[in-house]
């Protein structure tokens, strides 16, 4: 938004998690920054849109929005009548992104991707998308995937590209690899509140770095500070 790349935001929540406001977003919407078109749902609505997209259905049905102003703010929130009970239920339209980028712990070179910890809507977004790029902490042999197929969330047959980029989720975390850089989120409050600071940050950490390694090189001590401790689960028996 601040870099002027975004024309429209389709969203259900726009804040800095656990910290506060997203100031560039607020400036745009409150009329003091570059204009930004909005298409707004709730979390369930956005999840439902990805589900419809993943199932290649044109819409998804949910019990939601009765009594709220959200359908007025967004005319794409509509209703359907149940063919059995005749009751009215809310609908949202399918979302089929051009590209979905997923961060995962590991994948093989064919894109078979394993994720543990929180799963979000990554499976649904991947199946809904025309192309999928998976960014992984580790590229593993297919034998690692095949040794525990219940951990696979996204099959290679929907993946277009695998990018191997350790620490690629920073400032967020990768469960089992490194923790969230909370100091960064807290610092972002002051950076994003001030348009000049934000421009300087973009210059230093985005425009002026040649690649991800260059970005990480600017963050001294990161790996020592955030590396995950070891707490490995037991395996299960796939023999028969």
């Amino acid at each position, binding site marked *: 938004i601040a870099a002027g790349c975004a024309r429209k935001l389709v969203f259900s929540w726009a804040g800095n998690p656990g910290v506060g406001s997203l100031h560039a977003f607020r400036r745009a919407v409150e009329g003091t920054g570059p204009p930004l078109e909005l298409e707004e749902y*709730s979390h369930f609505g956005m999840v439902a849109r990805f589900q419809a997209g993943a199932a290649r259905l044109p819409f998804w049905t949910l019990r*939601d929005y009765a009594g709220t102003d959200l359908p007025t703010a967004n005319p794409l929130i509509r209703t359907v009548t149940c063919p059995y009970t005749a009751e009215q239920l809310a609908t949202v339209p399918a979302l089929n992104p051009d590209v979905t980028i997923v961060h995962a712990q590991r994948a093989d070179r064919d894109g078979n991707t394993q994720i543990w910890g929180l799963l979000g809507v990554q499976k649904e977004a991947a199946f809904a998308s025309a192309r999928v790029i998976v960014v992984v902490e580790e590229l593993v042999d297919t034998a690692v995937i095949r040794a525990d197929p219940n951990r696979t969330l996204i099959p290679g047959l929907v993946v277009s590209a695998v990018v191997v980029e350790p620490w690629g989720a920073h400032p967020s975390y990768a469960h089992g690899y490194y923790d969230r850089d909370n100091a960064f989120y807290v610092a972002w409050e002051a950076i994003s509140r001030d348009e000049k600071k934000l421009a300087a940050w973009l210059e230093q950490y985005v425009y002026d770095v040649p690649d991800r390694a260059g970005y990480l090189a600017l963050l001294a001590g990161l790996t020592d500070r955030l590396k995950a401790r070891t707490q490995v689960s037991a395996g299960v028996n796939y023999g028969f």
Partner: protein
Amino acid sequence: MVAVAARELHDGEVVFVGIGLPNLACNLARATHAPGLVLIYESGAVGAVPERLPVSIGDPALVTGSLMVCGMADVFQCFLQNGRIEVGFLGGAQVDRWGNINTTVIGDYAHPKVRLPGSGGASEIAAHAHRTLVMAKLDRRAFPEQVDFLTSPGHRCRGIPRRELGLPGAGPVKVITDKAVLEADGTGELVLMAVYPGVRLDDVRAGVGWPLRVRTTLLEVAPPGARELQLLREVLDPQRLYLKG
């Protein structure tokens, strides 16, 4: 405020938890009278036992040691819409006379004075949780007669009673503020139920944008005990991320 909210939770209940004060309240309840609370976070952690104060709804501490992790589609469809959530926590920039909540915009939607983050999962929690608890600081601007934007339905939405809207849950049964506790009366209107020690009725009335009615027997909120304070200050939020005092 956190201790007061914690007391509203019964042991064994299934609670949909947000970050911040609700998370503190739930973990305080778990550490005291309700060890069997099942905490569910919208990010997909079920039966979480966070060993640190989660800094976001997606904190890895919510996963490690939890009973189950599921996708967000399951959280909203199979837990919330399915009616498995007994208590939901809500907060917001505006709470109105009927318990409707606004987390979207102050002012007009197209040209807002203040743009807020939006619904997140609040709209559907307000619809589906068996009952909701609202936590908000008492302030006249935060408690208007009617919300500027109705994000999460209360007991009467733009004149239509909750029941006629087909909303499954009972709605916001209590609003816990830093000065008083409001509860919904039989008509769904928020009335004053209890005040914190030392708070005068006029202070509360000054913080509310409608003629606030008072329950026949006004109660006084019991202050947090030493054990509650010690847990909150030394164990649950030692860095004072969410607590002020």
